C-alpha cells in the first residue's frame, strides 16, 4: 500500500518536471517551424542586412536590424544605469553596512523587482519622460532614454542581489589579509573583494542583460513603436519584444507572412537570451574561485 502511494507521488513529481521540459520543447518547436516557413519567403541575408523593417506596410521590408538596434540601445542604457548602482549597492551591503541593516535592506531592495513591469512602463512614460524633457528639450514623448533608464532601475536588484551573494561568499580570511596589510575598507572592497568575486558579478550582469533584452512592457509603453535604425537615445525606437506585442495585439491575419514575422523576431530574441544564459552558466562553472 505504502509502495503504491510512494510510486504515485514519485510519478506526480516527475510529471511536473516533465511538463516544463515539454513546454520548452513545444515553444522551440513552434518558433522553429513558423520561422522556417517565414525564411522560405524572406532570405536570411535580407533578414539580417536590410535596414528597414516594414512588414505591416505596403512597401514591405524584412530587415531585423532596426529592431536589433532598438533592443541594443535600450538594453545598453539599462545596463549602464544598473551596473554602477547595482555594484555600488552590493559593495555597500557586503563590505560596509552593519549586519542588521544588511538583513533588512536586501529584501527591501528586492521589492523593486516585485513591481509589475507595466507600472514601470507608465512611470517611464508619465514621470521620467516629462522630467527629462525639461533637461533635454528635443526628447520625444516616446524615447529609448527614459525606457532604458527605468528598465535599468528595474534590474538594479538583480545585479545588486546576485553580486552581493558573490561578495558575501568570499571567505572572511581574504578581507582580514587585506586589513592586516593596512588597507582601508575602500581598498579592501575594490582591490580584493570585487576582483575575487568578479565571476559572480559578471554573471549577475549577463543575467541582467538577458533580462533587459527580454523585457517587454516598459519598452512597449515608453520607447515607442517605430522601427528606425538609430542609436540616438532621444529617438523613439522599437525593440524586438515591443514589435511582437504590437503584432500580437493587432489584427494581422493568422498564417500571413506578417504574422510569421513575430516568430522570426521571437527566435532571434530566443537565441540571444539562450546564448547569454549559457555564457553565464559557463563562467560560473569555469571561473568561480574555490575556497574551502
Amino acid at each position: 500500500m505504502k509502495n503504491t502511494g510512494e510510486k504515485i507521488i514519485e510519478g506526480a513529481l516527475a510529471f511536473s518536471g516533465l511538463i516544463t521540459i515539454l513546454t520548452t520543447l513545444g515553444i522551440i518547436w513552434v518558433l522553429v517551424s513558423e520561422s522556417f516557413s517565414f525564411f522560405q519567403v524572406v532570405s536570411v541575408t535580407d533578414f539580417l542586412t536590410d535596414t528597414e523593417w516594414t512588414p505591416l506596410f505596403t512597401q514591405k521590408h524584412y530587415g531585423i536590424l532596426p529592431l536589433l538596434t532598438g533592443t541594443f540601445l535600450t538594453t545598453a542604457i539599462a545596463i549602464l544605469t544598473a551596473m554602477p548602482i547595482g555594484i555600488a549597492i552590493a559593495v555597500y551591503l557586503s563590505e560596509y553596512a552593519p549586519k542588521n541593516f544588511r538583513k533588512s535592506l536586501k529584501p527591501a531592495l528586492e521589492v523593486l523587482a516585485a513591481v509589475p513591469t507595466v507600472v514601470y512602463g507608465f512611470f517611464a512614460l508619465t514621470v521620467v519622460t516629462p522630467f527629462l524633457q525639461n533637461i533635454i528639450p528635443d526628447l520625444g514623448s516616446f524615447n529609448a532614454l527614459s525606457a532604458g533608464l527605468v528598465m535599468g532601475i528595474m534590474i538594479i536588484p538583480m545585479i545588486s542581489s546576485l553580486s552581493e551573494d558573490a561578495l558575501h561568499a568570499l571567505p572572511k580570511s581574504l578581507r582580514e589579509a587585506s586589513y592586516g596589510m593596512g588597507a582601508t575598507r575602500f581598498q579592501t572592497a575594490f582591490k580584493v573583494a570585487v576582483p575575487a568575486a568578479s565571476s559572480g558579478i559578471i554573471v549577475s550582469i549577463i543575467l541582467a542583460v538577458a533580462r533587459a533584452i527580454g523585457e517587454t512592457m516598459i519598452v512597449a509603453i515608453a520607447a515607442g513603436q517605430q522601427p528606425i535604425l538609430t542609436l540616438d537615445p532621444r529617438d523613439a525606437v522599437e525593440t524586438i519584444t515591443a514589435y511582437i506585442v504590437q503584432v500580437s495585439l493587432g489584427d494581422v491575419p493568422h498564417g500571413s507572412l506578417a504574422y510569421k514575422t513575430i516568430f522570426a523576431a521571437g527566435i532571434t530574441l530566443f537565441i540571444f537570451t539562450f546564448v547569454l544564459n549559457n555564457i553565464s552558466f559557463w563562467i560560473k562553472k569555469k571561473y568561480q574561485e574555490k575556497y574551502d
Partner: protein
Amino acid sequence: MKHIEANNVNAYYGENHVLKDISLTMKANTVTAFIGPSGCGKSTFLRCLNRMNDYIDSFRKEGDIFIEGKDIYDKKVRVEELRQKVGMVFQKPNPFPKTIFENVAYGLKIQGIKSKSVLEEAVEKSLKQAALWNEVKDSLHKSALSLSGGQQQRVCIARALAVEPSTLLMDEPASALDPISTAKIEDLIAELKENYTIVIVTHNMQQAARVSDKTAFFYMGNLIEYDKTKELFTNPKHERTENYITGRFG
C-alpha cells in the same frame, strides 16, 4: 629595549570578559610565543596588537598597549599605518586570488607606490626573506592559489614583510601545514628574528619551545605565567602551567 608594552589590558566580547588584566612587555628582535588551551584569549590578545578586533562590533578593550613607545589605541593613530608597522600572518594561508607578484606587491601598491622597479625589488627581497624566491622566481605571474599550502603561507609571510613592518604577528602560522612546511616556517622565524620582533600564537608546545625566546601561558583570559621559554618549560612556577605543558589538560 621595550618594543611592545601592554598595561592592564582587559577585553570583552559583549558580556564576555575574555582578557583579564594582561600586562607584559616584549623586547625588540625577540620571538615571544603565546600558548594555552583554545579560548584562553591568546589570539584575542594577539589581535589587539594590530587592532584587528576593531571590526568586531561587540568588542571592547580597556588598558593601554604601546608599540615602539606609541599608544596604538590613541585617537590620533591611523589604524592603517599601525598595521603597516605591525604585520600579520594568519592561521590558514590566505593569499589573494591574484598572482604571486601581485600578492607580495599589494601592501606597497595600496600605499600608492607605482614604480615598477621599486615593486620588483621589494617583491624579490621579500620572497628571499620568506625563503620562497628560488621556488617561485620563474612563476611570479602565476596565481598564488596554484602553490602548495606551505608555499602559500610563505607568500603570505613575504606579503607581510614587503611593507617592512617592525613587528610580525603570527596566529598559528603552521597549524594548517605538513611537517616539512612547518619546519621551513620555523627556520624562517629564527632568521626573521634578526630584523623583526615576532609574536607567535601556537597550539604546538614543541614549536613554542623551538622557536621562541620567551613564552606566555594564557588560561581563561588570564596571563598565568610569562618567562624565558627555557625556564617556563623546564621549571614552571605555576601548577596550571606545569599541567598544561606536561599534557595533563588542554
